[in-house]
């Protein structure tokens, strides 16, 4: 009885993580087995996916970067300035924008925008028999469908988050200059003085981890769809919720690891 309960608890707590890790192992295994076969076809899918998840999401992320830069700076600047001057503003901006807010906000946008699209697209492919069709043509679906999405999503997420962070820092500096009369030189001096290798490592780690996790979850749920179209919205919802859960979980774990490292 207790054993069964513990097994149930273990399954509920770690079943999802186990499934995802197993799926990632399958993706890597298929890549090792198949590469360089189909390299040109897979590369074409990578480019297409970068266009859909990266280029097309660029405008929205730049807008978000601008707004975040303005909002965070105006909310914090007034009272922080009194406490510790420009130096503290640089530090807060660094932690709030580059380390935390931007990677999380962009990940959330990408989940809502591209994650649901991936789950629905793969679900439809499965229902229409297109996945079987690929198999019949000697094309390994995991290698041809999932692997390029993982690569493209990671590249796209990393790039647009970098752009959004850059934009938010620029707009933050303008906002400070306009409303608090902090000069650009003082602001950038404070920002770069407070920036360390840990910030860059954390920023990169987060983007790579989110970039792999989000499409992995979405592809997993998309390919889990069996025969009915009614499963598509159900799986899309499940994939979005799982993405949120794992992204926030990863965020906490990575913050914690870097804190220990520091």
């Amino acid at each position, binding site marked *: 009885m207790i054993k069964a309960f513990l097994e149930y608890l273990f399954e509920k707590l770690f079943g999802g993580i186990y499934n995802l890790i197993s799926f990632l192992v399958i993706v890597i295994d298929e890549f090792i087995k198949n590469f360089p*076969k*189909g390299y*040109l*076809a897979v590369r074409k899918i990578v480019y297409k996916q970068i266009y859909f998840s990266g280029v097309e999401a660029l405008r929205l992320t730049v807008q978000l970067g601008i707004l975040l830069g303005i909002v965070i700076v105006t909310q914090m600047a007034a009272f922080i300035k009194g406490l510790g001057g420009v130096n503290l503003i640089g530090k807060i901006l660094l932690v709030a924008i580059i380390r935390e807010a931007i990677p999380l906000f962009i990940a959330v946008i990408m989940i809502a925008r591209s994650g649901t699209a991936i789950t629905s697209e793969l679900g439809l492919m499965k229902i229409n*028999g*297109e996945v079987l*069709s690929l*198999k*019949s043509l000697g*094309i390994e679906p995991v290698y041809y469908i999932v692997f390029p999405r993982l690569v493209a999503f990671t590249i796209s997420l990393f790039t647009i988050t970098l752009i959004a962070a850059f934009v938010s820092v620029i707009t933050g500096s303008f906002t400070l200059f306009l409303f608090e009369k902090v000069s650009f030189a003082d602001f950038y001096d404070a920002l770069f003085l407070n920036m360390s290798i840990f910030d860059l490592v954390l920023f990169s780690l987060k983007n790579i981890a989110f970039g792999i996790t989000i499409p992995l979850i979405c592809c997993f749920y998309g390919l889990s769809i069996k025969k009915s179209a009614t499963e598509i919205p159900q799986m899309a919802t499940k994939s979005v919720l799982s993405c949120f859960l794992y992204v926030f979980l990863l965020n906490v774990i990575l913050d914690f690891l870097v804190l220990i490292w520091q």
Partner: protein
Amino acid sequence: MAVKLKFYKLIINFEGEKTPPLSLMFEDGDTVALIFSRDFYNKALIDFLHFIPTDYEGEATFLGKDFKAFTNEDKEKWQKSFASVCFLYPLINNLKVIENVYLPVFYRDNIKEDLVFDKAYSILEELGIEKKFNQLPAFLSNFERKLAIFARAKMLEPAIIYYGNVFSELDEDKKDYFSGKIAEFHNERTDRITIITSRSENELNELEALKFNKIINI
């Protein structure tokens, strides 16, 4: 005539059901009609021939080698020799028609896209659907989709080609056109084996362009 493909008491276990035993030899140049009493047999056989996991009893050999003893190299050899035209394996909806046609060769041989594009376009021209090359499959009629799937199979230049219920739901003109194209393709190679499945023998007997040397009712 060399025996290329042979089934002996082949029973396929598929989705909890079994197909009736099938014993048949396919020789170079054969045009074989398989009349299935149930669509399920067509689905089971085509999945089996594509190595989509299916359990089976009896024997199935290609060039004298049993399917069960196939190495990865044998599988690749088989995949290069066999293609199917069947709605069960549709076009990929997010790829344009021409991309669908050249995808298997582009993937399999890592050939530059320009080269496969030209070949695929000429096949679409032969079938009279070249104007639709840049469209997504959703914008094609049922018949055009069948022709595009045929074009995809032609691109692979298979020695054995399987047409699964391709004449169903086509009017007379389109049946004649399609069967003419199938016959042309069959005659391009003296050793090509053409397997055509249908639910009705009458449907196949009406096709003037195709001369079957074996008709099997299952």
